[in-house]
């Protein structure tokens, strides 16, 4: 096999073909280099191309932020209600739907209302410009439904 042919196959000399789109891309990159602070500097360590946010700093220094604590409280209170509901359900009578309707979820629903209102602001939740709404968190909307009788009867049927 001829040497030039091997080089042609392996392409060890670098980029050979310049198509019009790749040429435009290279010109854009060259123009962009004027503003790029990385041009001409060695990258000796792993590079993170973003700045750590102040909220991350504060969270790491002072523990969970208020919106995180509120979510923890919602989870804890919901678990408490579930335990108490389970006990009440075990001793249920014919009036279980009325008991479920009278169940006081004021404490957790107040937190849920505050979460729904302020979470996107406090967590700087990203926005989707197409939907003009906040992005989903873990594949679900960030809003939480308040707890009510239907929520109880779904888990503890009459």
């Amino acid at each position, binding site marked *: 096999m001829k040497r030039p042919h091997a080089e042609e196959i392996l392409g060890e000399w670098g980029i050979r073909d310049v198509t019009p789109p790749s040429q435009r891309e290279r010109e854009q990159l060259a123009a962009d280099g004027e*503003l790029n602070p990385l041009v001409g500097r060695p990258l000796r360590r792993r*590079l*993170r*191309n973003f700045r750590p946010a*102040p*909220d991350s700093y504060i969270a790491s220094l002072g523990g969970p932020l208020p919106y995180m604590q509120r979510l923890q409280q919602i989870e804890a209170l919901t678990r408490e209600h579930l335990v108490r509901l389970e006990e009440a359900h075990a001793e249920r009578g014919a009036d279980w739907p009325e008991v479920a309707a009278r169940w006081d979820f004021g404490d957790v629903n107040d937190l849920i209302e505050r979460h729904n209102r302020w979470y996107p602001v406090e967590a*700087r939740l990203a*926005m989707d*410009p197409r939907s003009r709404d906040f992005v989903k968190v873990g594949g679900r909307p960030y809003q939480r439904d308040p707890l009510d009788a239907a929520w109880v009867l779904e888990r503890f049927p009459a």
Partner: protein
Amino acid sequence: MAHDHARDEHDHEHEDGHDHEHDDSGADREREFVRRQALAQIRQYPDVALRMRAREVTEFDEFLVQLVERMANLMHDAQGVGLAATQIGVLQRVFVFAPDDEPMRAVVNPRLTLDESEKLVEEEGCLSLREVRVPVERATKVVIEGKDPNGDDVRYELEGLPARVVQHETDHLDGVLTIDRTDPESRKQALGVLRPKPTLV
């Protein structure tokens, strides 16, 4: 909109001739901590919320009053002189402003009338473009009409810094930033500053 309170206050330090160095440094640190906490809740360029047009407010309820109260606190803690709802990710046409030592005012659904006879170019900062100050040409006199958070009509005739601040905040509600209103060279420099910087870890 950001105003350099820190510099102003620094210029007025020690007027009584006493040595408050220790107290001042502690107070400065605390103020800086509070400022960072406030800034952590204010959307920063290039957050897409800053580019979205806010919707008219239709309900003047308790939520709006709470929103305005929260925005006023954030603006104060962040040492700014104005804050639009879009800057905290709420797409509603409401902003608060308090230039210099004037009391805080909130305007809902603002309508701006510019006096185009006199314009002035001055450097502007922004709580959402923290490190950037760019020259922006603005009308020196404006009339702003709208509602207050309780739904009552308000009308302010403003001149100088307050006029500049309300123009800046109204721009925010339309998704317009100072870098869109400055000259090409300043914009280029600002974009260079705003470009994400490398952090070695």
